[in-house]
């Protein structure tokens, strides 16, 4: 008897079909990964097993846990299963814990709610599982509140809650997506260890194919609510049958060819830059402390060069970006574009600003929802002394929209009419319209699905050839930076710890931190070419 057996599961929410005839089997001790792009229904599959679906959801088919049908189980019986027989770990550790309760109370709650043991034993068990997930009570007392822990530590608490009663099945819904690579590697190790130790089955939902290939015994690929392919991992990696699976794997290790970088003429000079933030006042009459977000950073970006900047969250890369854009003053050092400071006196230098543009991460938050595309992409014209008007303006808009793969007719539409990938194209059009000398890409492809990301990377490569772009590409995603830049810098705790030719740095890292980053990043195994039988 399988631990979990899903047969012909269909789900609709308020009449919209979300899942269509999904089948899935998990055996004890086995990790089954469900993967796919956004909208594939992978998370809904997990929630269906927990029976925590949103209001208005209707299911048909069968979900059997240890032979017991779940879909027809009364809610009270389902409550007895959740937390005891099935545990669940969620994506967002920052919000998954109740901010006003201690971690000890929250872990103990799993035990007490099922009346599994008396309170004093429950407390011992809470200590034990917290120790098991790497939060020993001598360093992390049960009386800690969630806000006193980091993201990775909070995810460990969530895991402790999920495994406190040794469930037979653990469901992990994008458990490491919100975490940095080094933390991700640790959490994945922890989950794998737990599965081995307890002999649990694990249903793992993730969009990251490298994680999937690394962790899972069995892979299920979904698209638009349907399973397109399912096979044991080695088999699937060796011989994908469905074109969508092939496309997905190809896209996630997509490579582009950049044109040869141009000469060695310096464009952006960053020298000894320091950026301090005042910390919140801790004493009434003492001077507030300082947090040094950027610590004596120096580098030069040459004309026609594509430079990468990698680092984990909080390393100071966003702060550095804002300083280069002249949005904030720096406390020491200077930033020069073509020899001129980006920030003069106490205001940004507009003469320099008009030669720089930026593309942000969030394709949904980057645009004023009340403006049309023509107004959105021409916003940088505000920097020009004589902004083009009339036909010239129209032509420039049309040229840019065409260059990024959209149609000139799109100028009259509102932003909500576009998909995430199209929005990112519009963001690139906006950045290019003034023909800036330098573009900053701030995590510009991080929020996109792999197939869309591959298209945007292709677009960037094309634009490099057409417009001789010079850019600084800021990202936490090493594989993207590796293909889209000529040179790369690695940032840690406000400092640049290593910089050099991209290929050189990736194949032969010099600094231990670079080494750790590269080692932690999950990679797709090199696939053998398919052998004809």
């Amino acid at each position, binding site marked *: 008897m399988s631990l979990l057996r899903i047969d012909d599961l269909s789900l609709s929410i308020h009449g919209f079909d979300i899942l269509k005839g999904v089948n899935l089997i998990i055996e004890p001790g086995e990790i089954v990964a469900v993967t796919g792009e956004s909208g594939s229904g992978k998370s809904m599959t997990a929630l269906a097993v*927990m029976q*925590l679906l949103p209001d208005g959801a209707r299911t048909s088919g069968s979900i059997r846990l240890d032979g017991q049908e779940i879909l027809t189980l009364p*809610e*009270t019986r389902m*409550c*007895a*299963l*959740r*937390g*005891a027989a099935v*545990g*669940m770990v*969620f994506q*967002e550790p920052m*919000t*998954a*814990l*109740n*901010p*006003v*309760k201690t971690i000890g109370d929250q872990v103990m*709650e*799993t035990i007490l*709610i*099922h009346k599994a043991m008396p309170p004093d034993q429950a407390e011992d068990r809470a200590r034990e599982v917290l120790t098991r997930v790497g939060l020993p009570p001598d360093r992390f007392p049960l009386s800690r*509140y969630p*806000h*006193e822990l980091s993201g990775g530590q909070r995810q460990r608490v*969530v895991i402790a*809650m*999920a495994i406190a009663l040794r469930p037979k099945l653990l469901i992990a819904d994008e458990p490491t997506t919100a975490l940095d690579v080094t933390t991700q590697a640790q959490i994945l190790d922890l989950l794998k260890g737990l599965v081995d130790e307890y002999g649990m089955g694990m249903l793992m939902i993730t969009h990251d194919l490298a994680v999937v290939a690394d962790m899972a015994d069995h892979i299920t690929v979904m698209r638009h609510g349907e399973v397109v392919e399912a096979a044991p991992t080695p088999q699937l990696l060796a011989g994908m049958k469905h074109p969508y699976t092939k496309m997905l794997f190809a896209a996630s290790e997509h490579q582009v060819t950049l044109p040869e970088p141009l000469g060695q003429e310096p464009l952006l000079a960053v020298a000894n830059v320091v950026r301090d933030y005042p910390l*919140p*006042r*801790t*004493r*009434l009459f003492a001077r507030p402390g300082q947090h040094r977000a950027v610590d004596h950073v120096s580098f030069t970006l040459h004309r026609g060069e594509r430079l990468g900047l990698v680092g984990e969250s909080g390393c100071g890369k966003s702060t550095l970006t804002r300083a280069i854009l002249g949005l904030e003053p720096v406390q020491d050092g200077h930033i020069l574009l073509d020899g001129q400071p980006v920030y003069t006196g106490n205001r940004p230098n507009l003469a320099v600003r008009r030669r720089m543009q930026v593309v942000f991460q969030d394709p949904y938050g980057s645009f004023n929802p009340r403006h049309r595309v023509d107004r959105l992409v021409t916003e940088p014209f505000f920097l020009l002394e004589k902004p083009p008007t009339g036909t010239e303006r129209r032509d420039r808009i049309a040229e840019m929209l065409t260059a990024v793969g959209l149609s000139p007719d799109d100028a009259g539409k509102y932003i909500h009419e576009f998909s995430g990938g199209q929005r990112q194209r519009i963001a690139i059009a906006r950045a290019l319209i003034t023909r800036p000398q330098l573009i900053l890409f701030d995590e510009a492809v991080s929020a996109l699905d792999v197939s869309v990301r591959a298209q945007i990377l292709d677009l960037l490569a094309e634009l490099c050839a057409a417009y001789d772009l010079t850019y600084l590409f800021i990202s936490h995603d090493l594989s993207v930076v590796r293909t889209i830049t000529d040179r790369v810098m690695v940032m840690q705790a406000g400092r640049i710890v290593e910089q050099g030719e991209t290929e050189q740095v990736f194949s032969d890292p010099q600094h231990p931190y670079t080494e750790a980053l590269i080692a932690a990043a999950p990679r797709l195994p090199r696939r053998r070419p398919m052998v004809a039988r």
Partner: protein
Amino acid sequence: MLRYSLKRALSLVLSLAVASLVIFAVIEVAPGDPASFMLGVNAQEDTLAALRAELGLDVSKTERYFTWVAGMLQGDFGVSYTYRTPVSKMVADRMWVSLPLALYALALSTAIAFPAGIYAASRRGKAGDVAVMGATQLGVAVPNFWFAMMLVLVFAINLRWFNAGGFAGWDKGIWAGLHSLTLPAVALALPQAAILARVMRSALLDILGEDFMRTARAKGLTRRQALWRHGVRNALIPVLTIIGLQFSFLLAGSIIIEQVFYLPGLGRLVFQSISSRDLIVVESVVMLLVFAVIMVNFLVDLAYAAVDPRLRSRT
């Protein structure tokens, strides 16, 4: 926690200082010469001079302000011009009607609103929710003093369960006093309870959408258990803000309601003083009301810290 409290206390003192300056400026500087304002246009020159001396108008404005503040700190609010008695004594007597009335109403309002709001949130979209929401929509629209008149009509004039007005006094026992404050408190409380119930409901519904509520359900809590164990305490944070604000409305509202029930509270005192142009009394009563509101906001700030551990550990 201590640091947080100290910081709030400092801001309390600052607010009181600025508020007293504003009140002083309006009452003692705006009318020009307060003495001739208080006595009217036909005042004799020697009575004017006498009053000026009595009010201490012969010194500079700055000095007068500090004398006033210093007096208040010692419980001396000056002497009423019309009644010739110390204002502190008059205010203290009236305070024993207005303050219990406001607190009584606050207690009623909270006691009604919490269950109603929680009930509506837990039955979201169902008949119970619709009924509670409809009732609160109506409750929000009812002027409390009109509602008070209707209560008098029904419960005092027709049913004769309560007196139509007047105050029994506390010396006859706490129950007699509470009894005569019941109709006024209900009149004050119901419209505020309607508002508070709506706030409670929407705060809870916001919390129900939070990730940690889903985590709680994944542990095996039922909807109701999750709502009570994880929802209510988090929802208290926005609700506390409203309770703090409501106190000032209840205090102000009690001044109006006192007119309906002929209660000898601060309201009666202040309206009599306005008509007799007794600025000294008006000034003191206003300062006292503002003091009460600022004080309650300070207490609400402390309550925040009790509810939310994030505030305790920050500053």
